[in-house]
């Protein structure tokens, strides 16, 4: 057999297997059951689930993500600078903090912040249960982003600091004007990734019961499993999944584009 014939034959077999698998799947699946459970038309229409999913769910998911990213980032800057501090105890503190919160499931942190800490320390979390949950997300996100930032700061060539110090700039001025701006650029792609992870982590807030208008997307869609026009079906979960993808996919594409651009710039 000629080489080219053999190659064509191999390709043909590979495609054949794929087509067969799809046909088999299509034949075996009970499409009416799938449609009834996932795509209940009562939920997809005008008076369906979209309104509450978007106006309450997506709105709060985006809001919670931005809040925890913003404060988490501020916390991360402090932690990263502490980790690079010449003062050893600051380094130990930052390392301990980062290792602690990266080693725990975010779910545990949320539960402890919402139900454990307020009782143990007789503390009223600002913003109630949601506030406590958000603080938990901030604590965790700060730990992850601190490591990313530290790597970014250390990726700025040493010559940059030397040049700035040689011009007479103080250590603080050098960090502020020369090192951090360059570090931020380096960490934009990984930080966008953290942002996407955080969007999905807000779903964990469903474990704390909150007021109706404070629910994020996952909580709203879960409530729609038992109430509303599609109660008894999983339609609202599929809808929530779609909404998550609409938010996250453009962002992950953005990361890919940014990384490509950064590689070109080098």
């Amino acid at each position, binding site marked *: 057999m000629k080489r080219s014939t053999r190659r064509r034959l191999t390709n043909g077999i590979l495609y054949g297997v794929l087509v067969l698998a799809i046909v088999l799947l299509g034949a075996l699946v009970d499409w009416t059951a799938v449609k009834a459970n996932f795509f209940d038309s009562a939920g997809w229409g005008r008076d369906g689930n979209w309104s509450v999913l978007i106006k309450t769910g997506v709105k709060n998911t985006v809001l919670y993500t931005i809040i925890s990213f913003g404060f988490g980032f501020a916390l991360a800057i402090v932690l990263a600078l502490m980790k690079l501090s010449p003062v050893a105890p600051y380094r130990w503190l930052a390392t301990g903090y980062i290792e602690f919160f990266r080693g725990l499931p975010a779910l545990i942190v949320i539960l402890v912040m919402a139900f454990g800490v307020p009782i143990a320390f007789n503390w009223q979390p600002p913003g109630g249960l949601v506030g406590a949950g958000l603080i938990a997300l901030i604590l965790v996100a700060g730990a992850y982003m601190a490591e990313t930032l530290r790597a970014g700061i250390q990726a700025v060539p040493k010559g940059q600091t*030397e040049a700035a110090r040689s011009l007479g700039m*103080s250590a603080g001025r050098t960090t502020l004007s020369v090192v951090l701006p360059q570090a931020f650029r380096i960490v934009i792609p990984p930080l966008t990734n953290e942002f996407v992870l955080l969007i999905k982590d807000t779903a964990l807030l469903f474990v704390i019961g909150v007021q109706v208008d404070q629910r994020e997307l996952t909580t709203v869609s879960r409530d729609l499993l038992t109430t509303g026009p599609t109660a008894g079906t999983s339609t609202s979960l599929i809808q929530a999944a779609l909404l998550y993808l609409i938010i996250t996919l453009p962002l992950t594409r953005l990361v890919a584009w940014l990384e490509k651009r950064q590689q070109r710039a080098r």
Partner: protein
Amino acid sequence: MTFMSVPTEKQSGRAIEVRELHKYFGANEVLKGIDFHVNHGQVVCVIGPSGSGKSTLLRCVNRLEDPTSGTILVEGVDITDPETDLDQVRSRIGIVFQSFNLFPHMNVMRNLCIAQQRVRGRGKDEAIEVARTNLAKVGLAGKEDAYPAHLSGGQQQRVAIARALSMNPDMMLFDEPTSALDPELVGDVLAVMKDLASEGMTMMVVTHEMGFAREVGDRLVFMDDGVIVEEGDPVEVLANPQHERTRSFLSKVL
């Protein structure tokens, strides 16, 4: 004291004075008791094989490296004294690095202005004027808005020189300023340095450019293995080296 003063030179004429300088990196002694000086208005070129300690010596002069022991006086100020305001001393010493080290996130004008404004405390208009003058001096007028990534290596190095000059330094230190450049770009940078020398700038130049050392240098210092092996008039040292080590080095590079 092992410091040898040359009788014809007055102590007060010294811009840089290094006495008994030792520098260790871990257990490795890279400077083994250096006595070295640069007089006002002089151009002193330092040559030697890589690893000889010449760059370390230059970097000690503004404390980018901390000396292990010894004294370094810059304009009479002891920079090894912990009470010395290093930022103040450094702002009076211009340094040009092998790898340019321009700030890549700032355009040329911002590169030239930031230290003038933040360290010298100049107003924006004054800083811009000083920057323009120095850009013109290095032959790059009109490049104010360019970012370093869009400039050739030779242009970047000339911007770096202009950045250092914009601080109106008392002296300029050059750490192998042309070693990272493509051969055809070396000439522009050397020409700028030559102009500076003819204006009477005090310069310490670590270099492999023997032609520059011969033509522009007032004194040539040959270092090897952490010590100054030989020094003197560049033409004299290059043509008639006294030490075997100098001879063997020069035979390889000339």
